[in-house]
């Protein structure tokens, strides 16, 4: 899951050759702007067939690949 999400983030948001780790700060690090979180959320929901409530999709919860994985696992049944 980590690798899938990381690859999505790179493809979607990284326009130069910035290195990304599972712990790189995405939103506070300026890689994903808070506007574009929407597509990340929708991607996760479609990919894992889950529904993440809006109040759980916070900038903090989306701030690294690892944190996103934690969030997704909460909703995977």
């Amino acid at each position, binding site marked *: 899951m980590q690798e899938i999400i990381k690859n999505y983030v790179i493809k979607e948001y990284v*326009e130069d050759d910035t290195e990304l780790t599972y712990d790189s700060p995405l939103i506070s690090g300026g890689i994903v*702007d808070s*506007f*574009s979180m*929407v*597509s990340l959320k*929708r*991607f996760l929901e*479609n990919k894992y067939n889950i529904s993440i409530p809006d109040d759980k999709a916070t900038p903090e919860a989306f701030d690294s690949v690892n944190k996103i994985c934690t969030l997704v696992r909460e909703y995977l049944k």
Partner: protein
Amino acid sequence: MAYSNTTRGMYSDILTGLKDAGLFKQERFIHSAQAAEIEVEFPAGAPLKKVINICANNYLGMSSHPEVVKAAHEGLDSHGYGMSSVRFICGTQDIHRTLEQMVTKFLGTEDTILFPSCMDANAGVFEAVLTKDDVMISDRLVHASIIDGIRLCSAMHDTFKHSDMEHLEEKLQLHNDKRLKLVITDGVFSMDGDTAKLDKMVELCEKYDALLFVDESHSSGFIGKTGRGTHEHCGVMGKIDIITTTFGKGLGGASGGCVSGRKELVELCRQKARPYLFSNTIAPPVVAGVIKVLEILSASTDRRDKLENNTAFWRKGLIEAGLIIKAGDTPIVPVMLFNAKLAQDVSRDLYDEGIYAIGFFFPVVPQGQARIRTQISAGHEIHHLEKALEAFRKVGKKYDILGKSKQEIIDRYGM
């Protein structure tokens, strides 16, 4: 009186912080009318200096056009100075509706509604026509006023990479379950001077049943064979659902803006758009001026043709001088310097040579992409441009950047 010394101190520190970061903006006082040649007081208190202006949005040289000035005078005499009302209370004169109809015809749309500015048009339109069941998909480089409008709207928002049509298509697929999808772009992008691929965007919008929004502020009056805008240039007139544009640039340069497009959407703006409902009407002399501008531009393409020739001359001259410019064919021509300090130094030295052009750097443009944005006008004569080129050559030589590659400039000056 709660403005205590502590509060004052806090704000002073913020301002000092801006100065330390090199982000503090200072105005230059212009003592003449807006034109190719202006008289400038800079810094404040300095003697007036006559310079050639190559950074105004005065694309068609209409800002001080004698016929436009005359029409504004006549409008002032016949319709007064102001209306002291928003449009829907008692702020709509016959000339406001006339102007709306003229803009509709000029842009080839169904209907038009005036706003106090294009900033206001962009701030009001999304909220007026979309709901939380919809999605806005915007180019990542759209103008700040569009971003503000998007923020004010309850619809979902997503972005696509600048001018990347494959990415846009992915986003249209991703959001295909939404009630409405609105694709949002600038026609000509103000910082890079590149043009949106409207033909391709129309095709995608038709394929995925999406609406298309284009901000034509930097195109209305001069892009396209008869100056109608990017939609004319791309052969998709009549296919743009919402156009916003300003009367503060090519179309006269005074103020005002509009939303033009599908008549139901325009009508919804009249019912619901907050800047239309809650901000004063465009002043009568300005309306009269814009009407004259549209008359002039509809009667002849001379001015946009001249602008096109000036632009070609300017772009060719800069390239021959060995400077790096962003490719394109619009009158927005960024001269790339990459380093913020270099951009500021070059701007200052150009000013000493009698050329008024401003450096842009982060956060206005991305880090490492500092530049001098030059903007060409039909008000320029070739001798103005020759003089400006001469100044660029001289200053470029001083900093040893002529004929140098991006990497060489970065190696020497940093990003």
